[in-house]
Structure formats: structure tokens, C-alpha cells
């Protein structure tokens, strides 16, 4: 049985280590915050200028001056600090953030990622995605294994415009987990969702990868 959104998020959360500073993208990545392992202290960064994101606010705590990078209202913590956008991306670009979890449309076997535009569709922009994949120490992608039409998303080379080249460290899909030790190594299939076989994954993947399950 493939993993659902929450299970994928929970799997990503297993990569969190005590003391990590983490930036979570919009969508499934946001759910990772609900699965932080016990005893692990993680500080969440929001690229619009905040370290130490709290949960969504109570109705009477809502503050228009306090939003995350998805423009959602949030709350602060006692450890929170605020800063401007230049300082925020100095932090990201400078490699001070330990981990980011992002969604993607396509990932290539070389670790390229495409997640910001589809030619012919209205372009909304890359936001902070290009900065995050270029700067953060470890990049985890969480995405459905296949597109809605059934076509593979982990492929030999991306067909969509890229967000970054050779940047992805780990891919968590609803079917499997792929990982690589460094950016010169190929991805390895290291884990399968319950009831999913390595053959199932192979049938739905065109990227080359090593198998370690």
C-alpha cells in the first residue's frame, strides 16, 4: 500500500536531527512539522524572515504581521527571531540551514529538480525555491511517484525548466525512498512503502538508480 501524504511527511521527518535548522516548503513538506521525532529539537525557518515558526495561531492570536512564506498566518515561539529578506537568504545561500523539504514536478537521476514552471501554463515564479536548492545543506524532495497521467517523475533528465542542477540528496515518494551519499554518486533505492516491491518501483521509474533494498 503506497504511503499517504502524512506517511511521506513522517518519513521525511525521520531525517531530522537534534539541533537542525530546517526550511519546509508548501504542501506535503509543511506536514513534516507534525512528525518531528520525540527528543529532537528542530528550529523552522521561514524565508520571509523568521527563525522559530510556531503552530497556526488561535483565532484571537491572528496577526497580519506574522505570516510564513506561504502567506499563512502563524504564531511565534519564545525562541523566535525576525530579520529582513536579505539576511534571511544570506542564511539560506550561505549554507546555514541544515535541511529543506520541497515538492517537485520532476527529478532527474543526476539530482536536478524542476518545480517552478510548466511551459505554456501561467508562470507564477520560483519564489525562494532556487535559493533553497542552491544553498541548503541537504535537499529532500517529497512527491508522488508518478504524475496524474501515470508518467514517471523520477526520470533520466528533466523535461521541464530546472530549479537547480545536481542538488537533490533524497527523494521520498508514495512508493519508495531514494538516497545518494553525495552529489557524485547515483541514487539508491533504500526503502519501499509496505506492499510495494522493487519491481513495482522499477516499472514506474525511468531514472537509473542502484537498488539497496
Amino acid at each position, binding site marked *: 500500500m503506497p504511503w499517504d501524504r502524512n506517511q511521506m511527511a513522517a518519513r521525511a521527518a525521520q531525517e531530522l536531527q537534534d539541533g537542525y535548522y530546517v526550511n519546509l516548503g508548501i504542501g506535503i513538506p509543511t506536514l513534516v512539522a507534525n512528525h518531528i521525532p520525540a527528543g529532537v529539537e528542530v528550529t523552522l525557518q*521561514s*524565508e*520571509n*524572515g*523568521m527563525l522559530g515558526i510556531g*503552530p*497556526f*495561531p*488561535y*483565532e484571537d492570536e*491572528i*496577526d*497580519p*504581521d*506574522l*505570516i*510564513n512564506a*506561504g*502567506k*499563512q*498566518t*502563524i504564531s*511565534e515561539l519564545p525562541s523566535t527571531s*525576525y*530579520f*529582513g*529578506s*536579505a*539576511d*534571511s*537568504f*544570506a542564511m*539560506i*545561500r550561505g549554507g546555514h540551514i541544515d535541511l529543506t523539504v520541497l515538492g517537485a514536478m520532476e527529478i532527474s537521476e543526476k539530482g*536536478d529538480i524542476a518545480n517552478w514552471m510548466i511551459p505554456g501554463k*501561467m*508562470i*507564477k*515564479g*520560483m*519564489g*525562494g*525555491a*532556487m*535559493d533553497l536548492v*542552491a*544553498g541548503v545543506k541537504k535537499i529532500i524532495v517529497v512527491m508522488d511517484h508518478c504524475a496524474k497521467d501515470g508518467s514517471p517523475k523520477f526520470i533520466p533528465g528533466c523535461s521541464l*525548466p*530546472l*530549479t*537547480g*542542477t*545536481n542538488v537533490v540528496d533524497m527523494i521520498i515518494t508514495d512508493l519508495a525512498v531514494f538516497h545518494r551519499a553525495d552529489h557524485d554518486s547515483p541514487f539508491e533505492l533504500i526503502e519501499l512503502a509496505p506492499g510495494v516491491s522493487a519491481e513495482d518501483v522499477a516499472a514506474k521509474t525511468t531514472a537509473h538508480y542502484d537498488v539497496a533494498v
Partner: protein
Amino acid sequence: MKRIYPDAQTALEGLLFDGMHLCVGGFGLCGIPERLIDALRDAGVKDLTIASNNAGIENEGLGKLLGSRQVKKMISSYVGENKEFERQFLSGELEVEFCPQGTLAERCRAGGAGIPGFYTKTGVGTQVAEGKEVKNFDGDDYILERGIFADLCLIKGWKADKAGNLIFRKTARNFNAPMATAGKICVAEVEEIVEVGDLDPDAIHLPGIYVKRLISGAPYDKKIEFRMTRERETA
């Protein structure tokens, strides 16, 4: 030296011309200079090139200037859901330069800091790198990005003293901080103007040297794009 103006309209007097370049602070609708945007709209100045992380939504923020067709070009990282923006963009009426968010913030800081260009890994190997110089430092490729220096910067602060020393509040700081420095002149609107000495000199986000003209824009009715809440646990 006159720094405090009675309203946004007078604060912009003598600063506006068709075809000018602006930096406008804010992230989404958070920390946008609402009063100054309204005054820009009312002034009718056109063919504007605006560097701003977002382009507002319909009838809010910079969306107002799109509605009135005053914008020629946006330099933004994300333009969200704005039907009028989409229409103008797809019809070719509006030019858009998409710039990664961190690159945009740094380009503004650089422009304000006398740095005409800097190298970044962001965007290497992507469409963003097209036409840009690539240089290898210590084995990695980086692209050259240019500083942004506008004719006019418009920002929104929380409080400022009469010497122009300004502080922001929470995530409303965002692009207001770097953009305040990135132009020939910066006009700021704040929620409250306080006396000199009322702000902690160790806690000033933007020294008065950058705030040449200042207005109080209160009262504010701040808009929220995505209102999220959680339930209180019941006892």
C-alpha cells in the same frame, strides 16, 4: 531638515516621473506601503518598472497599479493569483522579470551598498542563468547578478522617530529592510511616529539616514491572504 510629511501625496511631491524605477517593500500583503501605493495610483504616473517580491492581488497592494495600467515591468519572484496580472502578462502588455527571491533581496541590498554585481550559485544551470556571466570559484560555478538601484524606494515600517530611525514588526520587515537602501531616495510610511530618544539605539532596524521622507499612515486595516488557525484544546 524637513523629514515628516502630512500625507503620502505630499511625501511623493517632486519625486515621480513616467518611466521611473521603484523598489517597493513587502511580502505578499504583509508590510506593504499601502498609503504610498495609493498615492502612486492617484498621481497617475505610468510606465513604471517595479522591483517587488510580489505583485499584490486584485485591488490590493501593487495590484492596484496593475489595475490602473501604470506598470510596464515587474521584477518579482512570485506573482501568485491575480487575474488582471495574468491577463496583462499573457497579452504581453506587462513585462515580467522573474528573479529568485534571495537573489532579488541581495540585488537590492547590493545596489544600496554600492555593489554593482555579485556571484551566486542560485539559478546556475537554469533559465535564470541565461545571458549571465558564469564564473568558477574553487571548483563551483556561480552566476553574476546585478545590483538594483531605483529612483525611489517605498517602504512600510512599524514605528519611526522624528530623526527617521525606524523599526519593523515581526515578518512585516521582509523586503522593506534591503529595499529602503536601494535607491536615490526612500519614502517610508509607519504606523506611529515617536519622539527622538523613544527607540532603543541598539534596536534600530533602519537608521534615519535612509528615511528621507516619512509619514504616519495610521490607522491600518491590514489584509491577510491565508487565514489559518488552530482550535483551542478544550479542558
